[in-house]
């Protein structure tokens, strides 16, 4: 087996080993943690090797037939690698965080088994080279996430699990309907070649597009399919971090990008007049999510609605379909991941160590927990779009892209959304840094006793990465340069 075939397999199998090991090593926490960290590190190594290769034009592919002509294809193109890299980096951070967060709690074996299975699914989704492969991993993700959402077993968690399943399984059914309708006319679809739509009338092709995007939209949390995401907040903090930054919503957004660029192709989407309605829906989601976020006083809920809003930037960029808009959307896939995971890491630390879950409890937290709050603040500023944090770069490219595509109204959407972002994030920062400490807050000594660097460091690292991605956006191998490379390969084949 050549290296070209080995790389995609290793990337999928690397998280599968700790998934199985975690299930088998129930009760032996040390060994389990060591295996989890070792394989996360191993995967980072493989990713680094692949990054160098793909940039130089190398090509990694592995396939096996389901039935004759219908292949499971794992393929590493530049777009796949963008998502794989994000998931590998954040997997490492979340693994460390989860080890510290769950220390001493019950049923960690089950948690880490399904957690790693989610990473298997995310890697598979990223590298899918055909629609059926994408669907297989997309469903593995649905199934592997559910036990994490209901992990605590509380009535609230069970209800959240029900809501999650209702939305995602209905979405999957719509997605599957779209896929089989498409493939019943065009044969199996591979992303490298795109779909042959000649068998369909424009109306049928548009309906299939709506089914596909509607199905993916359930995970992407496009309105009106977003309600499961705030409900899923009942899950433990590392799960929320994973859900919001890498796994579930990103899988949906990534799928939207694949459908637009590698199944239909931008010319077809434009010819069918489907790009603009999708851009409008994404814009509506951006504004609606921000407005809802403003109304939440629970920190995690506010962050959840913020995700509803922010993930739609990716969809907006993809649907506008100009080179700059694409770059903006794709780079936001990474940037939003870095920033949102920082915010959730922070929210988890606040809840765990200081019992802070509501915005009104944030008063004076900044000076008591400076590292966590500094990281949180950097990420929040990035979400608003303050330069030089990464979020600014995304919004800048999206705005130019909107202008280029003749949709200048996008700029207005971005401005309003940024104002709303500021309106729901700045009060948090104001309370944390400028208000005197609330009486209920644990004092320095109590906090020092509960300080665990393994819990704090991942957030600090991802915040630094978000800052770095913005500051060094012009450098080679920055997320922006990589997104530009992808756009280049789309528009200048």
């Amino acid at each position, binding site marked *: 087996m050549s290296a070209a075939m080995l790389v995609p397999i290793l990337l999928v199998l690397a998280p599968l080993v700790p998934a199985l090991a975690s299930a088998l090593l129930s009760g032996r926490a040390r060994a389990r943690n060591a295996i989890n960290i070792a394989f996360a590190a191993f995967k980072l190594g493989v990713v680094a090797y692949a990054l160098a290769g793909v940039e130089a034009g190398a090509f990694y592919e592995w396939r096996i037939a389901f039935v004759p002509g219908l292949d499971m294809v794992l393929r590493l193109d530049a777009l796949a690698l963008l998502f794989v890299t994000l998931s590998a980096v954040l997997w490492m951070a979340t693994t460390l965080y989860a080890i510290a967060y769950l220390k001493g709690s019950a049923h960690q074996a089950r948690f880490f088994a399904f957690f790693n299975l989610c990473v298997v699914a995310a890697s598979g989704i990223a590298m899918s080279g055909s629609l059926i492969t994408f669907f297989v991993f997309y469903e593995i993700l649905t199934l592997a996430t559910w036990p994490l959402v209901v992990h605590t077993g509380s009535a609230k968690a069970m209800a959240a699990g029900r809501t999650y399943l209702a939305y995602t399984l209905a979405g999957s*059914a719509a997605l*599957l309907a779209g896929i089989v309708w498409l493939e019943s006319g065009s044969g199996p679809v591979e992303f490298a070649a795109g779909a042959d739509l000649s068998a369909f009338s424009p109306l049928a092709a548009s309906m299939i597009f709506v089914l596909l995007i509607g199905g993916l939209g359930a995970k992407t949390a496009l309105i009106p399919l977003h309600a499961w995401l705030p409900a899923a907040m009942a899950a433990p903090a590392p799960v929320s971090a994973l859900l919001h930054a890498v796994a579930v919503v990103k899988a949906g957004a990534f799928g939207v990008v694949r459908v637009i660029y590698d199944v239909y192709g931008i010319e077809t989407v434009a010819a069918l007049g489907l790009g603009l309605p999708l851009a409008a829906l994404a814009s509506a989601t951006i504004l609606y999510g921000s407005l809802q976020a403003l109304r939440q006083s629970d920190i995690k809920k506010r962050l959840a609605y913020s995700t509803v809003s922010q993930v739609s930037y990716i969809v907006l960029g993809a649907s506008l379909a100009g080179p700059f808009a694409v770059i903006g959307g794709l780079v936001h896939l990474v940037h939003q991941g870095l920033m949102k995971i920082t915010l959730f890491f922070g929210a988890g630390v606040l809840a765990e160590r200081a019992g802070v879950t509501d915005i009104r409890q944030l008063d004076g937290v900044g000076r008591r927990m400076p590292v966590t709050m500094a990281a949180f603040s950097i990420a929040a500023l990035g979400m608003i779009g303050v330069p030089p944090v990464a979020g600014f770069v995304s919004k800048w490219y999206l705005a130019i892209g909107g202008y280029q595509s003749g949709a200048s109204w996008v700029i207005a959407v971005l401005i309003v959304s940024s104002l709303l972002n500021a309106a729901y994030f700045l009060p948090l920062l104001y309370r944390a840094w400028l208000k005197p400490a609330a009486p209920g807050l644990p004092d320095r000594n109590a906090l020092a006793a509960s300080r665990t660097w393994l819990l704090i460091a991942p957030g600090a690292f991802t915040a630094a990465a978000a800052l770095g991605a913005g500051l060094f956006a012009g450098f080679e191998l920055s997320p922006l340069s990589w997104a530009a490379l992808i756009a280049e390969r789309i528009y200048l084949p």
Partner: protein
Amino acid sequence: MNLLFALAGAPLAFLLASLIAGRHGARLIWIAAPVITALAFWLALETHARPQGGALGGWMPPLGIALEADGLGAVLLLTCALTASVTGLFALGRYGGARPESARRYTFWPLFYGLWAGMNAVLVSRDLFNLYVAIELLSICAVALAAFGSRQAAVNYMMIALAGSLAYLLGAVLIYAALGTLDMSLIAQRAPEARASVLIAAALITGGLMAKTALFPLHGWLPPAHGAAPTAVSALLSALVVKASFVILARVWFEGLPGLAGAGVITAFGVLGAAAIVYGSVLAITQTGLKALIAYSTVAQLGYLFLVFPLAGGGESATPWTAGAWGAMGFHLSAHMLAKAGLFLAAGLMIYGAGGGRIADLTGLARAMPVTSLAFGLCAVSLMGLPPSGGFMAKYLMLIAALASGQWHYALVILAGGLMAAAYLFKPLARLFAGTGTPAIRALPHRSMALAPLVLGAAAIALGLLSAEPYALMVSGLPEAGEAGLEEAEP
């Protein structure tokens, strides 16, 4: 010795051996399971090269008895061997040596091997009378095993099974009177000569087999019989027995009487299948007992099989593979065998552990019985038709065939059926995770019993990941009508 005769005969030999061995008969499963599974695996390898056939004593029909295995038969023999082996080993925990003396320890094993022999004989026979003998053996053993649970349910089951057999036998006699043969391929050649009487015979045979398969609306006997039986028996009845009569039905129409089915007959099968999916799923959703839920799920899942009648031949031009609907039927038959047996075994262990059979009794059991719960989950994934699993391959191929041939109404039913399956299977799954404490459970007779459903669930999943070889086998040597569709077939 011909491999096919060995496969049909081996369970019979173990039947006799278990009768002779008396209370030591249970241990025979340690030999029977590997031997018969190995034979079935060998047959699958051989059939991969070319379809297998043979005649007893070298006498070909119409004089002698001929056995045949096409690719589908070989796959099902292997799946059946795997399911029966694992279920048999599981049953050691209950009907093995450790328990106090009871009559069941003596009666279970001969009935078990008789059931297995009946299955294998059905899968290798192509002669209406041989098939009759095989399915009678199967039905008698199944009814007797069902009586382990509820005698009333077993009596009802027996009535239906006998009525079905009678109708089938009458049909076979009519065919013999009209065509002078009972051999499937000879029937196919001669059927056009006496269309009217063949049609009546086909109706009788179909009615009888539908009752035995528990196709809606003839399903009423199934949930009480399967729901009340002991765990291992439920698994055998739901996974294997009902499939046998369906396989005969499919062979009669696709091999024996292609071209006889008009649009009306085909639509009738499709409508009944669709109704079974909807009705069985709705009733499964409303159940509060775990085993009753799984039994109604069988009613629903059997409905999918009947969609092969309208879907065969659908969209052959649009797909790179051939005989998608036929392959879907093969995947559904084998995936359901594995997953349903696994689900019943897992359910039995959980009911034993929790000390109650209601879904509500399962609260928090995922923490106390993680392996069993995982097995339950894997089997459920395949039954819901979610990837990666054999159940998903079946659903995908069916959906493509339905849409490519413009029969979108069947596609809608299949998609809705998947969602309803998720609705009824996530009900017990959610209970397993609910609550915060770890419930105290009764220790299993043998810890390794939990591995049985896990093996079956893993096999159902693997069938969807390594599907290329099974698919190639399922469609090798298939009847012409299986590829072209029933209506297209030349009479």
